[in-house]
């Protein structure tokens, strides 16, 4: 049974009730436990838990240190194409938006990647919109082959595929897959999407296809702002736990981008403030002690720095969110505006100041190829 079937067996109203009705004493008891059961997840993300933020944050900080050490891994996104046949309400790449569309050639992608290599990055995340005619699997595959020898790790956050498609990319040198479900609420999902992406179940099936192919990390995410965040995060954890069980060799990573202004002027109906965002991160660390927690440049510098000790294990830095953006920042349309505009070296220094080592390399191609 795939997660798209599991999800319909989860009683969402009871999650909402548990979130609303949790008493602080219950949270204290939860903090003394070693494991958080599925049915206890709503408590962690309840308003009552916000009052015990310091205690939860202390525990999150200790768990993170034990499992990951006093380190933060750095990565950079490389946008290959902003062509897209989808029309997601919140995205700068949506097909309705009049923005300059660019698909990088393999040579151009390499030139962009060289800038990132020179900055010190060894972990790369390739990003595209979904537009099979403008940017096909074959093009992505060619870029991966060109970059595989230069980067320690290559991840993709691109259009969803079936198992043979992912297998080709794994063969070419991709070791991790990120595919956000965006929202776990079917109605919200239907309202926000049209185009091929509107198929909620197909998207859930795609990440499972990635699990079957054996990517080392599966990256999940919910876009914060589309639906009430407390319920969304409970579902995100349930999804993570499901994948972790069924693909036991695979690590799970979580991202939860707060929606930022993008072309099209979308206003998120359920905004998440900084305190709530921090509660989400520390709660997630308790819920899944071994999951990677990714914090992108969508978040402001001061908040990113403040969150480093509490559970974050991976940060992007110096990101450009448009194809070709590292060479020409204003050339093509952006997916969203970044909020932390510091250079990679500045972010690395901030990590050091938080008492952590910025780690540029934490994987090796030798795992995959002689």
């Amino acid at each position, binding site marked *: 049974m795939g997660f798209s079937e599991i999800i319909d067996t989860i009683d969402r109203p009871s999650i909402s009730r548990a979130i609303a009705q949790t008493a602080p004493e219950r949270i204290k008891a939860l903090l003394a436990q070693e494991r958080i059961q599925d049915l206890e997840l709503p408590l962690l993300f309840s308003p009552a838990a916000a009052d015990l933020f310091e205690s939860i944050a202390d525990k999150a900080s200790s768990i993170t*240190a*034990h*499992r*990951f*050490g*006093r*380190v933060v891994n750095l990565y950079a996104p490389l946008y290959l194409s902003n062509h897209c046949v989808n029309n997601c309400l919140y995205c700068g790449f949506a097909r309705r938006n009049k923005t300059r569309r660019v698909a990088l050639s393999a040579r151009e992608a390499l030139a962009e990647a060289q800038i990132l290599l020179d900055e010190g990055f*060894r972990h790369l995340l390739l990003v595209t919109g979904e537009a099979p005619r403008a940017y096909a699997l074959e093009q992505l595959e060619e870029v991966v082959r060109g970059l595989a020898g230069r980067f*320690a790790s290559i991840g993709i956050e691109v259009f969803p595929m079936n198992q043979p498609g992912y297998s080709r990319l794994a063969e070419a040198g991709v070791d991790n897959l990120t595919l956000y479900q965006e929202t776990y609420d079917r109605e919200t999902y239907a309202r926000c999407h049209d185009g091929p992406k509107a198929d909620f179940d197909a998207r859930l099936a795609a990440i499972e296809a990635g699990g079957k192919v054996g990517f*080392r990390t599966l990256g999940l995410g919910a876009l914060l702002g589309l639906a009430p965040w407390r319920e969304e995060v409970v579902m995100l954890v349930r999804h993570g736990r499901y994948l*972790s069980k069924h693909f*036991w*060799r*695979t*690590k799970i990573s979580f991202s939860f981008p707060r929606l930022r202004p993008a072309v099209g002027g979308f206003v998120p109906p359920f905004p998440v403030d900084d305190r709530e965002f921090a509660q989400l991160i520390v709660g997630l660390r308790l819920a899944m*002690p*071994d999951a990677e927690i990714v914090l992108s440049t969508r978040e402001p510098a001061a908040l990113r720095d403040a969150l480093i000790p509490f559970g974050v294990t991976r940060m992007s830095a110096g990101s450009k969110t448009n194809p070709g953006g590292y060479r020409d920042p204003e050339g093509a349309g952006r997916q969203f505006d970044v909020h932390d505009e510091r250079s990679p070296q500045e972010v690395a220094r901030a990590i*050091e100041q938080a*008492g*952590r*080592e910025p*780690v540029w*390399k*934490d*994987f*090796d191609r*030798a*795992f*995959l*190829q*002689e």
Partner: protein
Amino acid sequence: MPAEKGALQIAGVTFGSRLLVGTGKFPSPQIMAQALEASGTELVTAALRRVDLKNPKDPTLSHLDLKKYRLLPNTSGARDALEAVRLARLARGVTGNNWIKLEVTPEPNYLLPDPVETLAAAKILVKEGFVVLPYMNADPILALHLAEAGCATVMPLAAPIGSARGVRARDQIQIIIEQATVPVVVDAGLGLPSHAAEAIEMGADAVLVNTAIAIADDPVQMAVAFKLGVEAGELARRAGAADTSATARASSPAAGYLRKGN
């Protein structure tokens, strides 16, 4: 009683310390270097996935004084035998160093070692001339297999890695020590110097510590504490503690007289 054990010897190399230290998880390479120095260790392990062997400016490698320490590269992150073997070959190809700490951990959360793949990789690597120090679950039969395959040590875990729980696998480790023909290095899960002392008191030849030192509020002071813990364990072993012996010992001249079978 294992009191007659001399200095730690692995594959013919003698070490002045029974404490092996890992280089991951430290807040900075500088603090790592100070902690290694303070620990008195002579054998340090580094994850090949973390270090860039071809880069002399690599943050970890550039802070390791390889005149002081023998480097034990490890295959941490390998999910099967083939991946571990590839990494080991890469390490030897670049550094000329044929020592390898074999780690095969297919499950990324508890990072428990895979017995089947570890044994398979060990056999290949020994055949290729590596000095193999395998990380393993505290399984006495597996320890015998690994020793028989030609491994230079066996490295049973005390508890899951990073858990700081101490010698949870005590009974199994005791059997491994009793049956061992190669040095037994207790690896993973030691959270306090007293845990390290306990392992050495039990008769382990050495311990490997990483997380407990690296994430302490003061890693350098904790490194000293582990050094002393290991030394205390060894002193206690040599001194022949009164109440930990598995076999009966004469507690008075009369008992001794009786035991002689008079």
